[in-house]
């Protein structure tokens, strides 16, 4: 590929190649403080390419490829090349990750222990994780938490935080000095702006944490909390894991151990200030 970059996010190394300079320049800028893949060897390749040579220049549209691909995935306009790169890296994780059980959850750490937050798109996983980072928690990731079947520990995947729609302004206010990516309008998920994790999140990204609490946040409801039994937690986490089936018995053992050893709570919240108070209280009680 014409343009290349390498980076490591948590324990995972990527090599991203592109037919265009733009997406690589955006990655190199936003990921400038991230290390290179361990021993220089990436775990996954991502390719951003033009379907036909002339589409590199004429109405350029970015196809997402790599070691693992979804056939017929719709391309993105070049203006959204950064999003294509991020989607490409997520796709490799979702389809190709075999060492860790992928939990579709954001994760933050305090005192060596991890809080996992999972839920549907729009539930507030990324927003709450970013706001907790602003309050001094260590961000471990806004999309994937990696459960190590060998140890039961959570490894982080602190990629750029993907803020959508209303969450963008909330975090611009909460973290006025933070680094943000370009505003990407008209994406399949509305307006997206990436937030660079803070220096602490990047410096400590290789440090795993002991899971302590699982929350299922749900935005847009009166404040309420309820205990979620282990069986329901298990079902929700398997539904949201793209590699549970691939990990077979290792995945089963890792997940049954997780749901049996740490509590889970559903958390309805009307606004983020209320949610943060709820989270802090539930964390202390766990």
């Amino acid at each position, binding site marked *: 590929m014409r343009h290349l970059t390498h980076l490591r996010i948590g324990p995972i190394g990527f090599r991203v190649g592109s037919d265009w300079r733009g997406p690589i320049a955006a990655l190199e800028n936003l990921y400038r403080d991230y290390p290179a893949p361990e021993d220089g060897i990436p775990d996954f390749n991502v390719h951003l390419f033009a379907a036909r040579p002339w589409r590199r220049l004429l109405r350029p549209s970015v196809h997402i490829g790599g070691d693992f691909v979804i056939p017929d995935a719709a391309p993105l306009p070049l203006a959204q090349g950064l999003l294509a790169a991020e989607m490409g890296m997520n796709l490799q994780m979702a389809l190709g990750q075999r060492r860790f059980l992928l939990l579709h959850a954001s994760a933050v750490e305090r005192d060596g222990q991890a809080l996992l937050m999972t839920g549907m798109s729009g539930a507030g996983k990324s927003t709450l994780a970013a706001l907790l980072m602003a309050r001094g928690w260590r961000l471990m990731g806004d999309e994937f938490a990696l459960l190590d079947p060998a140890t039961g520990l959570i490894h982080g995947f602190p990629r750029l935080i993907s803020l959508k729609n209303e969450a963008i302004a909330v975090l611009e206010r909460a973290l006025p000095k933070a680094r943000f990516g370009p505003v990407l309008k008209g994406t399949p998920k509305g307006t997206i702006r990436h937030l660079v994790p803070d220096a602490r999140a990047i410096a400590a990204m290789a440090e795993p944490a002991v899971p302590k609490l699982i929350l299922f946040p749900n935005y847009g409801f009166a404040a309420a909390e309820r205990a979620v*039994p*282990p*069986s329901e937690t*298990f*079902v929700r986490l*398997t539904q949201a894991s793209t590699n549970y*089936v691939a990990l*077979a*018995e290792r995945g*089963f*053992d890792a997940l*049954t151990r997780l*749901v*049996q050893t740490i509590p889970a709570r559903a958390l309805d919240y009307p606004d983020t200030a209320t949610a943060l108070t709820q989270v802090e209280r539930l964390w202390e009680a766990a």
Partner: protein
Amino acid sequence: MTRYRAAAPETLRVVPLDALTLIYHRASGITHIVDSPVPEILEVLAARPLAEPELMARLSERFELVDADAAALTARLDELVATGLVERLCAI
């Protein structure tokens, strides 16, 4: 009479949680989430293959099933045969 045999215990990982029980079936790689009386049926049938009336009798004496119902047991056995957790043995 048709008898039923449970999958060998060494092919199953059974983890009782709250109200439900998780069963990982090594032979198929499928995770089953089951409610009573399925774990009890598997346990009784693990010892040796049984026909329905015997199975019902064993379940009743060992687990005090609240609504012992032959039709319901047949339905459960049919489901378990479909999942591969129980095998239907030829009635010869």
